[in-house]
């Protein structure tokens, strides 16, 4: 767990995940990039819009007998609303994600080593189109032109307000499986990230240190 001091305010900044590249200083909200030898200050991160998510950085849970902690938050906005992407650090150091939208939670993992030829080109993406990925058949069910609202904590990619993303939701024949393709605005050559996971309940994750709400 590398830790250095914030170049702006001097506070101790700790990376819980070895995979994280960016973090927001908890004290002065400077947005820091984890360079090879020191942090680079990229400016101040704007406050995220408030929400009534039960999750927060520091909350923990258990998935498939492995415990995890929430270490970062990315908030995305699109034409008809918001969603959150929570970055998890599993106890064995592997990264995972908890996507949150409209009261539903999806635990998913970025798929590494997917051959680029099996992924569709951004210009080819259409709703209803069928894809074969990792021996599974998917149908494209949703396309969103989204933009980042900002981030908190640590994340493996840059997440600053205004950064655009083309987000594609896939549905497989097994309804509970969730999959998405994320194309970053700045990505070259149609590069995209593939995420695969499943719908899950917070109770099923045995989560602790969640936010508390008036009335509950």
């Amino acid at each position: 767990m590398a830790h250095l001091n914030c170049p702006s305010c001097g506070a101790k900044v700790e990376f819980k995940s070895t995979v994280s590249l960016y973090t927001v200083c908890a004290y002065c909200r400077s947005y820091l990039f984890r360079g090879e030898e020191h942090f680079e200050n990229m400016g101040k991160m704007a406050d995220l819009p408030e929400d009534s998510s039960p999750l927060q950085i520091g909350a923990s849970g258990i998935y498939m007998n492995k415990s995890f902690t929430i270490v970062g938050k990315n908030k995305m906005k699109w034409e008809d609303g918001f969603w959150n992407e929570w970055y998890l650090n599993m106890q064995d150091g592997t990264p995972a994600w908890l996507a949150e939208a409209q009261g539903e939670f999806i635990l998913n993992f970025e798929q590494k080593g997917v051959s680029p030829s099996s992924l569709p080109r951004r210009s080819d993406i259409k709703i209803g189109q069928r894809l074969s990925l990792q021996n599974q058949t998917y149908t494209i069910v949703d396309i969103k032109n989204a933009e980042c609202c900002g981030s908190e904590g640590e994340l493996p990619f840059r997440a600053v307000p205004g950064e655009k993303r083309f987000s594609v939701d896939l549905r497989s024949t097994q309804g509970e499986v969730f999959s998405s393709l994320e194309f970053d605005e700045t990505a070259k050559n149609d590069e995209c990230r593939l995420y695969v996971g499943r719908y899950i309940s917070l109770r099923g994750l045995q989560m602790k240190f969640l936010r508390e709400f008036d009335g509950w």
Partner: protein
Amino acid sequence: MVGNSSKKVSPKVFNCPNCGGLLSISALGSTTTVSCQHCLSILDATHPLPKLIQKYTSNESYKPDIPLGTFGVLRGVKWKVIGFMVRMDRASSFAWNEYLLFNPYVGFVWLLQSEGHFSLAKSIRSLPEMTNDNQLILSGQNYQLFNSGTAIVKYVVGEFYWRVKVNDATEMTDYISPPYMLSIEGTASEFNWTLSEYLPAAEVQKAFPEQSNYLGYSIGVGANQVNPFQNDRGTLFWTWFVCALVMAAFGLYLNVTKPEKVIFLDKVGFPQGTKNIKVVSQPFEIPDGQGNVNFELYAPLNNSWMYAGVDLINEETGDSFSFDEGVEYYSGYDSDGAWSEGSYSSDRVVSSVPGGRYHLEYDLQTDAVAPVANVKVSRHGSMKMNFILALLLISLYPLIREIRRRSFEMKRWANSDFSPYYSYASGDEDD
């Protein structure tokens, strides 16, 4: 800020941009649309301050039975009512209520209210499969097509997690497997499956005790309401069947061990050309014993009748037992083929006949030509009547239950355009 868990999160309060009234948002970040409680304006909640989209121009007003902001515990989860919507089927103008329930740890569910019947509904991700035109299967359960149409939004108040306004229309189809209902809403490219479960009135009243006076008065049968006469149908049938079998076996046993004992046989012929005779029989002994005797009249007729007024007279005491018997038999051919009506024989049980010396006096009438009346007086033979009576008795309860079960189903399907009980093509009742 990170990990600031000491303060409890409260609903965010805003002023309505149209009327200035206070409105609060509990599902901040999820809520896309807010309809102001005071002026019913539709507001866009995806901006830091809600923006006006549409003012309310209708004069229709609907009052939710469970007010916004009410908390209630259903199925072990504490929910808050944050939205209320009234939708109407375009074709039939049939309207129902939908309450959006929110729990920050669990998400959203819907409480549906239709003619006083309640169901709890939630979005599902699994895709049902079509087994035939009118049937779906999901998780091993078969769902029957119940209704299909266009749902129009008539009224919205409170928070919703999608963009909604009055007069929005959605294609909607319902399939039932009581207590469940599967509904699909949307278009071919964008659709949503919802699974709802029927909630008994008592459960809803318990969840919302302050409003329980208004809840639970329902009309007719709910689409996915469980038929109370359905569940033990199998056991009931087999119990009845076994009882009938046991009775039949017992009856057979009695017939074998106590066969019919003929006391007296008589043959009465009509003299040539007569249609009416009065005859007195030879005397015979009725032994002491059970008290019941069987009297049977048998006459092979064709397209005619015979009637007997009978007196069984005790020669020692002068007591008489009087009764009538009649036989008739008709047959012929018509466009459907051969038909027949009636029977050659007729019998009855004469009860409490003490032993002694008896004779019969008959008053016979007929319209047949030269018929012969055969008379048989016997004991024990006719277990038939007792068996039929007993069978009827044990069948009474299952029969009544089956009638009630069917009546319940017909009431349920009366609200459906796809009822298996009515054939719409010919307008006849079809099963």
